[in-house]
């Protein structure tokens, strides 16, 4: 009797475990299926390279380049802010902080990760946008720069906690050996810990990059969503995520515009998938290295 229950439970749990795979597979299937129409009629390459996005004019144009460039600028600014700041904070947490400070710092970082991005967007709208407008004498503060700065803050928890994890997983023997030879803590951090944890820190940056490319609400609220090709972060920009978020709700189901938005989603999906797969492989290797 209990043997039968055992088998039933095992089978049921294994079946439920397939759900995640099924969802991931359906995401691919639905994206590809809905994207087919535009890929057939416009062509993937000409969308990727097209410089103008006028989905509602006649003839309609479906170039992704304005959104791709916008995503690039926002991500660039975001990483420029969050990588140095995040890695430095992680070094302090892992190598210098006392246990109390460390516990406190990590709790705050965890808390930060739980704040919805739309709230960061609101803060950006009221604080960063006016600031950017006045300090750079722009007509509007809704620029790739404003969005990038806030997206950088959104990425910080990811970068801090994963690089701190990587540094912490370096065996203490290495640390003690270095300190015993008379190195200072900073020398130990730079010459021993950072090189040993470098692949994990790199993975942290990759995951931060994935987070930045995929961030939607902050960009929708702060980047300005203009259809131009932005040549600097001080111009209004639209991103892949912003374009999808703004237009999908209003477009005719099954039409070419609808399909083009799914192709854009597919491009975004492919990017983040590659980035995550890469980061995951690096983290996995790092874990094996020290265990």
């Amino acid at each position, binding site marked *: 009797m209990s043997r039968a229950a055992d088998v039933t439970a095992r089978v049921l749990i294994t079946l439920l475990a397939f759900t995640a795979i099924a969802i*991931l597979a359906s995401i691919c299937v639905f994206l590809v299926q809905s994207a087919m129409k535009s890929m057939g009629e416009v062509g993937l390459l000409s969308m990727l390279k097209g410089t103008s996005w006028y989905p509602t004019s006649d003839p309609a144009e479906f170039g992704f380049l304005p959104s791709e460039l916008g995503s690039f600028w926002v991500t660039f600014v975001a990483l420029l802010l969050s990588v140095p700041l995040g890695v430095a904070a992680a070094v302090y947490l892992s190598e210098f902080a006392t246990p109390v400070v460390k516990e406190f710092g990590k709790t705050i970082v965890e808390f930060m990760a739980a704040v919805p991005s739309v709230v960061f967007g609101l803060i950006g709208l009221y604080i960063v946008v006016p600031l950017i407008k006045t300090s750079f004498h722009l007509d509007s503060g809704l620029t790739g720069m404003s969005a990038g700065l806030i997206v950088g803050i959104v990425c910080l928890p990811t970068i801090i906690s994963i690089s701190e994890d990587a540094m912490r997983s370096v065996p203490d023997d290495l*640390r003690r050996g270095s300190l015993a030879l008379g190195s200072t*803590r900073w020398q130990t951090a730079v010459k021993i810990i950072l090189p040993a944890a470098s692949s994990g820190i790199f993975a942290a940056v990759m995951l931060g990059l994935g987070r930045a490319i995929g961030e939607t609400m902050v960009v929708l609220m702060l980047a300005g969503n203009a259809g131009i090709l932005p040549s600097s972060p001080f111009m209004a920009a639209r991103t892949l995520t912003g374009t999808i*978020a703004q237009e999908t709700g209003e477009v005719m189901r099954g039409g070419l515009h609808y399909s083009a938005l*799914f192709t854009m*989603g597919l491009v975004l999906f492919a990017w*983040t998938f590659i980035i995550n797969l890469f980061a995951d492989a690096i983290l996995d290797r790092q874990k094996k290295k020290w265990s």
Partner: protein
Amino acid sequence: MGNGSSKETTPRKTGKATSSRVRALLRRETAARFITGAALALVVTVVFAIFGYIIYRGAGSISWEFIFGSPKDRMTQGGIWPAIAGTLWLVALTALFSLPVGIATGIYLSEFSNGSPFARFLHVAIANMAGIPSVIYGLFGYAAFSIALGFQKSILAMGLTLACVTLPVVITSTEEALKQLPIELRRASLALGATKWRTTYRIVVPTALPGIITGAILGLSRAAGETAPILFTGVAFFAATPTSVMQPSMALPYHLYIMATQPTVPAPKIVWGTALVLVGMLSIISALAATWRSRRRRKLTW
């Protein structure tokens, strides 16, 4: 980690013998400590500043009528109850769909998979699911739940979409919670003649429950704050307090977004009040979950 032992480990000044090289090293050590510490302090300050600013701007809006009333005068006055209720409905549905599957998958990965190739594949898939941008889940939910399954723009379609977003969080935290238990616990139960499944549901899962529940709460509070996945699957600028899962509804994060960016008449009081309610709700829930977990942890020691 040898924290707090820096005094012993940094080279000591030994009077005249302190060479300029050592002094330079010590200066660099102090500078590095200061700079990296300043980076952490900046991050912490930003978090406190954001919370402080939300409380400062939002506290004045909070009243009985704001929380339990309906919007009035083209959304510029009145309360946000339909949005709060909508978010509560969404969280309930998300929990209903994601927790059973997520916890079962976590149990499978920790207790039954034995590092099989399928389990390794599953790990990779879950890590990737966690990294998919939320707007992609929105596209998927729209195509799959709203259109293909015919749920249209409804709480049901939104709940299913948010469940997909939450699933990787629930799976990962369940697996982590289970893996923290010592192997002896399982061996003792098996040695007494319990089957694998009996061991799992009578011993392993109850012991790991605080961790599992905390993870579930964190996942659900993330779902409560998500905006992009519900943009196309059923969120409304205005809808009455929902009475069925087949209706569209309002939701707090969307209300915040739309009132902040596209108001016919600006209503900063509503915007900041909504922000405070959303952030307050999420912070209280996650603080409670974290405290409960650490209490339970202190009781159980191995």
